[in-house]
């Protein structure tokens, strides 16, 4: 190893630390859940309304999402790796769960209600 390698490692650790800090510092609670299938918005939900929903595509692929107490997760997926299911719950604005093989993702967004709440506070 050269001295430069150590600098490189320190530099990368610094960048990683900064990006984690930024993500945590600027995160805010979301209020809407967007379901996007093949680049098109498929359905929209209220994050505070408990529900489960099944996404069924024409090609036979399916995903099931569950919204509960302000959190969303993917409970079932027909994809082989099931990474989206393993990811667990999300709740903050701009967080998303992506199922790449099925071209499906759910994303939390602020929506108008979120902004109104923020003003009311």
């Amino acid at each position: 190893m050269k001295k430069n390698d150590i600098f490189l490692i320190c530099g990368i650790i610094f960048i990683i630390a900064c990006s984690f800090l930024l993500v945590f510092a600027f995160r805010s609670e979301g209020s809407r859940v967007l379901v996007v299938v093949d680049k098109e918005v498929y359905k929209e939900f209220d994050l505070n309304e408990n529900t489960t929903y099944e996404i069924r595509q024409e090609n036979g692929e399916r995903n099931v999402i569950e919204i509960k107490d302000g959190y969303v997760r993917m409970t079932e997926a027909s994809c082989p790796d099931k990474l989206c299911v393993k990811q667990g719950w999300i709740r903050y604005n701009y967080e998303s769960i992506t199922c790449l093989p099925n071209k499906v993702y759910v994303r939390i967004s602020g929506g108008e209600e979120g902004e109104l709440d923020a003003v009311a506070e």
Partner: protein
Amino acid sequence: MKPKRIALYGLFIALAFIFSYIESLIPIPFPVPGVKLGLANLVVVVAMYGMGVKEAFVLSIVRILLVGFTFRDPSTMIFSLAGGLLSWLMMAVFKKLKLFSMVGVSIIGGISHNIGQIIVAILYVNNTSIIYYLPFLMVSGLVSGTLIGLLAGLVLKRLQKFFLYEK
């Protein structure tokens, strides 16, 4: 092409292929897409320093095509190709610049592999929020890149005579 070179290609491709298979058997405890050990990358780094930049390119592409058609869904090959190509390009550039040792070059390779995959994933589903995975993937690239770089150093030291004879 010299017979020895052909044999080396065969050996390395087989090795990278097996490493990819072994890797698919190891469960990853982190639910972030793209977090991997990158064992096959060990072969690419060894080939890059032992054989040459061009040879590492051929090896990397052949491995991705083979693995894509056998162990994985071919439609996911686009992610491996994006990662593999960017990783190779960055490693080739930084190897030439001679700023870093094999460890540094391997780290750059690991991280750019993840960046390449993320860029394609963002375009594939049109979800820019995937960028939130990047810090996690950078940690993964840093750790695996360091380990692969150190391992490649050990391997090359032991194979030194072999590669010298080849040239």
